[in-house]
């Protein structure tokens, strides 16, 4: 059960510029009372993992619309685990086919949110997970 302020890293890995979703989510989470660290576009998995470590976040949220999720996401999860952050909640949003989502969940991504997801759903998911659910 986490009593303290919840910290969330929102990152957009990959070389494309689709950052609308990431920004929308970052603002929604801020308005829900979370501390959101926004890292900007063109982040490598190494950059994301390093930021997660320095910021000691509870949640890492990735936004990927480019189709590169199958290589990028498992790498982020692997790096987080290797640096001792196995307990960080990893969320993914963007354009993710269902079969890929299932595979990514097996690889350590906790949840995948596609287009049309409301921020209320995402906020509720994070709150439940942080409460130990």
């Amino acid at each position, binding site marked *: 059960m986490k009593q303290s302020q919840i910290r969330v890293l929102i990152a957009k890995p990959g070389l494309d510029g689709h950052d609308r979703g990431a920004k929308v989510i970052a603002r929604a989470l801020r308005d829900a009372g979370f*501390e959101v660290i926004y890292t900007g576009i063109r982040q490598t998995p190494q950059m994301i993992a390093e930021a997660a470590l320095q910021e000691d976040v509870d949640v890492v949220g990735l936004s990927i619309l480019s189709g590169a999720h199958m290589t990028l996401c498992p790498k982020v999860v692997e790096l987080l685990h290797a640096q*001792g952050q196995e307990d960080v909640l990893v969320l993914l949003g963007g354009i993710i086919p269902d079969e890929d989502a299932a595979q990514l969940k097996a690889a350590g991504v906790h949840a995948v949110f596609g287009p049309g997801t409301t921020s209320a759903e995402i906020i509720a998911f994070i709150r439940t997970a942080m409460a130990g659910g």
Partner: protein
Amino acid sequence: MPKPVPTQQLIDNLLRGDRLALSRAISRVEDDAGEAARIVQAVFAHTGKAHLIGITGAPGTGKSTLVSALVASYRARGETVGVLAVDPTSPFSGGALLGDRVRMTSHSGDAGVFIRSMATRRGTGGLAKASADALLLLDAAGFDRILVETVGAGQAEIEIASVADSVVVVEAPGLGDEVQAIKAGLLEIADIFAVNKADRKGAARTVAALEMMLETGGAAAQTIFHHGQRMEAGAAASEIDGRDGWPIPVLETVAVSGGGVAQLRDALERHRTWLDESGARVARESRRLDHMLQTLVQAEMLARMERTLSPGLRSDLVDRMQRRKTDPYSAAADMVKKLST
């Protein structure tokens, strides 16, 4: 959920240079006053070595970009750098969007740099309550330079002056006719002015306006105007006798390209030397520690008040004040008397 790492282990690892331990320790001092006390008690003897540099100024003047450029400049000399970047907490939601990191991504992968974002939470004055503690942790972790970026500062955000050894106030041309510092009260706390975005029109005018203000605000001295490009390393646009006899330089910088940043670094180095030689460093640290002491005692007294006084007493007094049976000063004196008995 995995069990949290014991605090003692965090402290040991932090002092050994473990970055995850440092990061988690900062969270604990932010989240929990008891933990803050334990951690700071354990690391305090290892602090006092770093050069603490405050970067403040109006929103959007280029503070984060300038911090990033300074980090690069220090790294080129092999010095390690810790960064604390403070952004405001929303008073409505209690949340915060911390975006300073976006400008600092070029240091990713460099083990000599550690960047931490911090929300102000209930802090005032442009910093968080936990900022001073976080700086102690970065200091104990062994960084040579520690850069603190305040929230985009307005009138009252001058807390940085009681936290840093050297304060850089960042200005930019085109923020309006008046130089922002006039109303911001940042003038009094600047050790160095950086007129950033000097690639833009109006930089020379901003420099001139600042110089004029320094002249009228402090001891008059010879003013040398330089327009356009920087001349050579260490050449300030002008230097005027300022706080405690330190000549406050007004420098032009272009943070996006690194222009003028070596000169800013040199000016910071001169300021540090001046602090040591003039005794100002000792005086400032003493002021800083006194400030911390006062803040902590205040917090403890308030906490003790909440703990020990019967909850009804406070509302009773407020009620009596409202009915003009007593006044705020007498009510406060009443409560304090109850506390000390």
